[in-house]
């Protein structure tokens, strides 16, 4: 019983310690983020590279995924909803599924899988190779130089990729609805415009921004948690991605709830 209590106490201390560390990390990132916009910005190159990798290089994957999902949603909508006399809801379903839900969350998943692992792995490798210490020794704050540009880069990329996902998702829906249901382009655009509200677009943008922040912070945090051994790098990368996925789903549920309140 004593052993059990000791273990429980040790585990509680460890978990509490890691929460405190994560909170301290987030506060320092916020502080350096403010300084980034008002101070010198030698990290602009890192920011550019991050947007290039996270945003530009993910375009092809996002395009294929969103075109296919848009097509699937419209096919299901066009075939199922008329059976219940709700054909008019097809476009509403399309907006809800593509714009409000799938756009932000799937973009978040793709970025977490691609860039989240890359960030955690890269920073972990830098820790093991003492490159982070080399930054500190040179007088460069690693949070300012490595974390802040990644935070901005990933957030901007997720937001832009979400817009891109929406455009391609809705286009994919049109490409399928035209040959299958004979929907003309003008009719499609008019119907979509009637149900798509500014609120939907803002909600989608907010979600993607929050997801971007989560992915960047979690990935950087786990990358920097690597201590000495290269075997810790894949472990932390896996933890980063799985934690990103869980957080994205939970936060998405919370934000959707707030949307309907």
């Amino acid at each position, binding site marked *: 019983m004593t052993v059990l209590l000791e273990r429980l106490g040790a585990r509680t201390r460890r978990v509490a310690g890691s929460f405190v560390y994560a909170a301290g990390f987030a506060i320092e990132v916020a502080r350096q983020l403010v300084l980034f916009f008002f101070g*010198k910005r*030698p990290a602009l190159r890192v920011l550019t590279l991050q947007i290039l990798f996270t945003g530009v290089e993910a375009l092809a994957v996002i395009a294929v995924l969103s075109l296919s999902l848009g097509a699937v949603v419209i096919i299901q909508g066009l075939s199922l909803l008329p059976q219940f006399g709700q054909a008019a809801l097809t476009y509403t379903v399309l907006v809800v599924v593509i714009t409000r839900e799938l756009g932000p969350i799937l973009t978040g998943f793709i970025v977490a899988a691609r860039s989240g692992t890359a960030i955690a792995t*890269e920073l972990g*490798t*830098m820790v093991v*190779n*003492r*490159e982070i*210490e*080399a*930054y*500190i*020794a*040179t*007088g*460069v*704050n690693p949070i300012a130089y490595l974390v802040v540009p990644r935070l901005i880069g990933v957030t901007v990329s997720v937001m832009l990729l979400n817009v891109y996902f929406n455009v391609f998702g809705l286009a994919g829906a049109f490409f399928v609805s035209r040959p299958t249901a004979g929907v003309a382009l003008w009719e499609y655009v008019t119907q979509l415009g009637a149900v798509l509200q500014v609120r939907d677009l803002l909600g989608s943008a907010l979600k993607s921004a929050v997801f971007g922040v989560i992915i960047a912070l979690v990935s950087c945090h786990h990358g920097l948690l690597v201590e*000495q051994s290269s075997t810790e790098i894949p472990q932390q990368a896996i933890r980063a991605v799985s934690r990103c996925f869980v957080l994205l789903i939970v936060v998405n549920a919370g934000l959707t709830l707030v949307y309907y309140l």
Partner: protein
Amino acid sequence: MESQATTHQSARERPALLRLLDVTVRYAEYCALDSVSLELPLGVTTAIMGPSGCGKTTLLRCAAGLLQPHAGSVELLGVDLARAPDREVTRLRRQMGFVFQHGALWQNMTVRENLLLPLEIHRDELTPAQRRRTVERIAERFDLTHLLHLRPAQLSGGGQKLVAYVRATVLQPRVLFVDEPTTFIDTQAAEVLRSDLRRRIASGCTVVAVTHDAELTALMANRLVVLERGRVLINDRTERVVRTGEPRVHEILRDVLSEAALYDQDILTLLDAGLATDDEPVGHDDAGHDYD
């Protein structure tokens, strides 16, 4: 005991470069530094020696504020790096360089970018063209011009080490921490490096080196710190260490130095030959004024 007395005497004579008080560092269950208290004066070249795994690199990282000890305090040039405000730490970093054992070059940058970054951070009064010219001039001195466009991974171990040394010294630091500066590099490059170190020491740069290089130690170290199992065995002037009655110190020096370089020479005789003589090199105080 003798070493502590000398340490206090040195502290009265010249400003302290480094003060470690009861510093303990643990890696899981392993104690790398065990309540180490140490004071090194400014303007004195110090060599830290000891068998593998005795805590030399850990001591150097603590001294430079790169590793937070689990207990104890570290002051570099009178500043507690763990508690000082950012601006103070940046000011201090501008004055120090650190050469890592394995180079620690930034792999996602070219050699040129590795050398440019310290200038971009600390010499913003220079135009980008002036910074580039500075890097090219220094690279030429070390015969690195042909490597400037390469990534660190494309360099040999020795090349990386040399670039790491140049990166650490590109800002002309007052204090230079070097971890095994001459390992992995060929004889010619080692000589270039030694000669540059000599020039820096002569112009007032304080060097603290972890080294197994007998020649380097003999030529430059005015002070030796010998570590064993995370504890300081002795911290004194080189000639006093060489003449100490402690057989364990002799044993370690013989092992460490001869293991690395000179197999057939009597290392202690070399050290004792007066190549590294007095504890009185040229130095300067915090304001940068020369003192004797």
